[in-house]
């Protein structure tokens, strides 16, 4: 290909581009990506995909199965809040970073060596993978699915592509970053005013995005980076507003969960309304019964039966995978109490099943620990009033630190696993 247009190095005029700018943006980006990735994988673990029908797709390899804890109660609100906040904050920095290194896309020759060729394949996966995970994540939190594939497995596996390519990129570019910071200092270029904003000279013996024919500067590096920082902080604030809630919810100016519903006991964020879940009113009326089931044994309870049992109140958050939370005061019957009544074994896993007619999340399985936790409730009321239909009337699950959608609404059945040893009436074997 002839060296014309963007393939000519002199095509790229900005005096701000170069290895220092790219390195500085990378150092800002990396901690955000680390937190975002770790909390993303933690979220996957928080769904306990090894239990019951919890897995949203067939697992390939999961090396980090452990029972998701039930405390602190805000654990999932924290990890998933961080996932969305760091992800949003990373977007402007990622875009700036891509701008800073765009001349490298048009590098000639296309591959200087086999090693360089592999690096460029890795870069394609890095750019495609990063844009993919950020775009799908941002669309998902706005409940917009123009992509026509299932979000969870796509976002999950694309993150492996992104992170594998990122690891390769870091190994190959760490030297550039070190050299750039050694030659120009980590922060020194931020002190230059416009008169002192000179093009980066590039690095000896390395191919960088430093310009060979720079135009005069119209902007300092600190103004460029400050603008990126303001964009990043604004997005982080919008994310924080919907994670922390309360008076901070006002910060969520453009993020999806910034609206306040009112002051009533049921006026808080809804993940899925009764209407959209296909809940018909006749199923939640006076004929509603809760079935407790262990193996072949089952018990049926009315709502009045449940209200007649010991009522426990707990302040617990609904923390959504989409990165918003809301803490409310729930009242209902302990799941452990219902387990005793049903005759379930100690520490048995429990599956909650909803009236909801369809969808993979009409049911969820809790670990033995989650089902037995002091504050794990079948809630009947919230903030002193009966649950509204949108919040799961007649009864819903609420478990500390559990991902929001696993707090099953409109519960019609609780089923405990049958443990072989426990199902024997006399474990000492007096046959």
């Amino acid at each position, binding site marked *: 290909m002839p060296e014309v247009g963007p393939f000519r190095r002199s095509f790229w005029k900005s005096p701000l581009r170069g290895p220092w700018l790219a390195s500085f943006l990378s150092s800002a980006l990396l901690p955000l990506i680390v937190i975002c990735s770790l909390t993303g994988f933690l979220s996957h673990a928080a769904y306990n995909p090894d239990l019951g029908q919890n897995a949203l797709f067939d697992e390939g390899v999961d090396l980090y199965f452990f029972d998701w804890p039930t405390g602190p109660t805000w654990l999932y609100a924290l990890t998933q809040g961080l996932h969305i906040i760091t992800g949003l904050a990373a977007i402007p920095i990622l875009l700036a970073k891509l701008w800073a290194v*765009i001349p490298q896309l048009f590098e000639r020759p296309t591959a200087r060596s086999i090693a360089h060729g592999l690096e460029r394949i890795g870069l394609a996966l890095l750019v495609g993978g990063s844009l993919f995970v950020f775009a799908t994540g941002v669309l998902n939190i706005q*409940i917009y699915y123009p*992509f026509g594939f299932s979000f969870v*497995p796509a976002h999950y596996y694309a993150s492996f592509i992104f992170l594998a390519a990122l690891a390769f990129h870091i190994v190959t570019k760490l030297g550039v970053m070190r050299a750039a910071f050694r030659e120009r200092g980590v922060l020194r270029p931020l002190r230059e005013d416009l008169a002192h904003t000179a093009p980066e000279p590039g690095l000896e013996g390395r191919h960088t995005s430093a310009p060979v024919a720079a135009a005069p500067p119209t902007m300092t590096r600190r103004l460029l980076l400050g603008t990126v920082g303001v*964009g990043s902080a604004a997005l982080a604030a919008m994310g924080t507003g919907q994670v922390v809630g309360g008076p901070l919810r006002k910060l969520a100016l453009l993020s999806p969960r910034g609206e306040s519903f009112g002051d009533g006991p049921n006026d808080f964020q809804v993940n899925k309304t009764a209407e959209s879940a296909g809940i018909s009113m006749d199923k939640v009326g006076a004929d509603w019964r809760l079935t407790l089931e262990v193996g072949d044994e089952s018990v049926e309870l009315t709502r009045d039966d449940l209200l007649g049992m010991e009522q426990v109140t707990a302040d617990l958050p609904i923390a959504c995978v989409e990165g918003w939370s809301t803490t409310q005061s729930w009242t209902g019957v302990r799941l452990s109490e219902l387990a005793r009544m049903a005759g379930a074994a100690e520490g048995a896993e429990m599956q909650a099943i909803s009236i909801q007619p369809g969808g993979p999340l009409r049911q969820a399985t809790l670990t033995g620990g989650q089902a037995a936790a002091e504050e794990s409730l079948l809630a009947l009321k919230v903030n002193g009033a009966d649950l509204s239909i949108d919040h799961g009337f007649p009864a819903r699950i609420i478990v500390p630190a559990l991902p929001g959608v696993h707090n099953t609404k409109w519960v019609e059945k609780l089923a405990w696993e049958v443990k072989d040893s426990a199902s024997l009436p006399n474990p000492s074997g007096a046959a």
Partner: protein
Amino acid sequence: MKRFRYEYGASPVHLLVALTSLAVSAWALLQVFDVLSGPGRFLIWLLGAIVVHDFIFLPLYSLLDRAAAGALTRGDNPSRLRIAALNHLRIPVLLSGLMLLVWYPLVLSRSPGGFDGATGMSTDIYLGRWLLLSAVLFAGSALLLALRARGLRAEE
């Protein structure tokens, strides 16, 4: 070792890291083809993202920036006021555009059925909020420029 470097272009460690990275990516793609009902669309989005960003989005905003810069700072020695004006234009437009880029499904009500149905809220408010936020950014930037203008002229 020298021979390897000459033939390959980097150290053996580089090659091992490259192979590890590509193997993980290939594994993830296999999983995608195994699990996803529309694996072709996954590839289109993965590669399409590069095309859309690198060959459409970035050139487009660069051209807009170059047009604004050309109009405001033409000539060899643009005044400090003109350079400041350029940045007072660039920055609010950039921030407003960033907000639209990230929140366009809400701002432009791309998924009113999905969002409204699921959340019980409406996407109606977002276009107004984005417009007001943009207005505040533009007006704030204009005000700052006006306040700085005298000082900048005096420095010429």
